[in-house]
């Protein structure tokens, strides 16, 4: 990957590879400055970064399920069974 010959500016091809580091605040200050400078003059990459943020937003919404009441009861029963083991507890019987 070669930078533009005339300046220190990033190309779009380089910039898209830096997006995650940028969003993670993992870019070193000099590189972050160059990245932001690129976004300032590149509407396409600005859109790309927005798309990446919107992708993350969609991903966060996937985390919506909860355990069913029935499953919860079954798991609590595990705990009660474990409680009943004598001190120096042996393994619970696990049917495999």
């Amino acid at each position, binding site marked *: *990957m*070669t930078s*533009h010959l005339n300046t220190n500016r990033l*190309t*779009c*091809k*380089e910039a*898209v*590879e830096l*997006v*995650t*580091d940028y969003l*993670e605040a*993992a870019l070193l200050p000099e590189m972050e400055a160059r990245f932001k400078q690129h976004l300032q003059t*590149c509407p*396409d*990459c600005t*859109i*790309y970064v*927005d*798309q*990446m943020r*919107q*992708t*993350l*937003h*969609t*991903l*966060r*919404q*996937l*985390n919506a*399920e*909860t*355990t069913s009441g029935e*499953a*919860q009861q*079954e*798991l*609590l029963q*595990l*705990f*009660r069974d*474990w*409680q009943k083991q004598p001190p120096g*507890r*042996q*393994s*619970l019987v*696990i049917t495999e």
Partner: protein
Amino acid sequence: MTTTEPETQETGPARASASANDLRLLGALRSGDEVAFAWLLDQYHTSLVRLAMIYVSSQAVAEEVAQETWIGVLQGLDRFEGRSSLKTWIFRILTNRAKTRGQREARSVPFSDLATAELEADEPSVDPSRFNPSDHPQWPEHWGSTDAPQSWDAIPEQQFLSQETRACVLKAIAVLPPSQREVMTLRDIEGWSSAEVCGVLGLSEANQRVLLHRARSKVRQALETYFGEG
């Protein structure tokens, strides 16, 4: 199964040791406080199942693995020394169990050595043909005029959150290489910190970021294709 399984040992780099809250919880569990266990279930059970799904063949098996994990947690309580956080410890038990079970099912299992193999290959995040060539007279390696990304700002929020969009994203995640799927699931779906993910998966921060970058790039691409077909 015996009570001396290595999985419950606190191996690996300690990213964060047990907090005061962890120790309180531990004390409550050891004295048989069911409310404490119910709280743990509420916090972690669905995440355990989700993570197990990466390694095993079905939701049902993932549920079994999660259940076995809780058994392992309870059996290991007496030996847990707080050198890692409770959460890290629980999830390490899960990943060990899920990988073992996945192996028994003869699925290809994502051990962290496979992460190394995945990391060695180069993977551009965007199809290189969408950029101008490097000898372009004016804008080398910039987006080509016909291939630049189109803004999603006009897409209504309800479409972003629709079942169809969700299905598209889930499908994209399901076909990710295992290590990328692991990192994305924990970071971007479960909302774990990068330190927590590195702790459970045994990755450096830098490697974790590379895997995350590749996963995110693919999911973005899947969404772009999906929205573009609308």
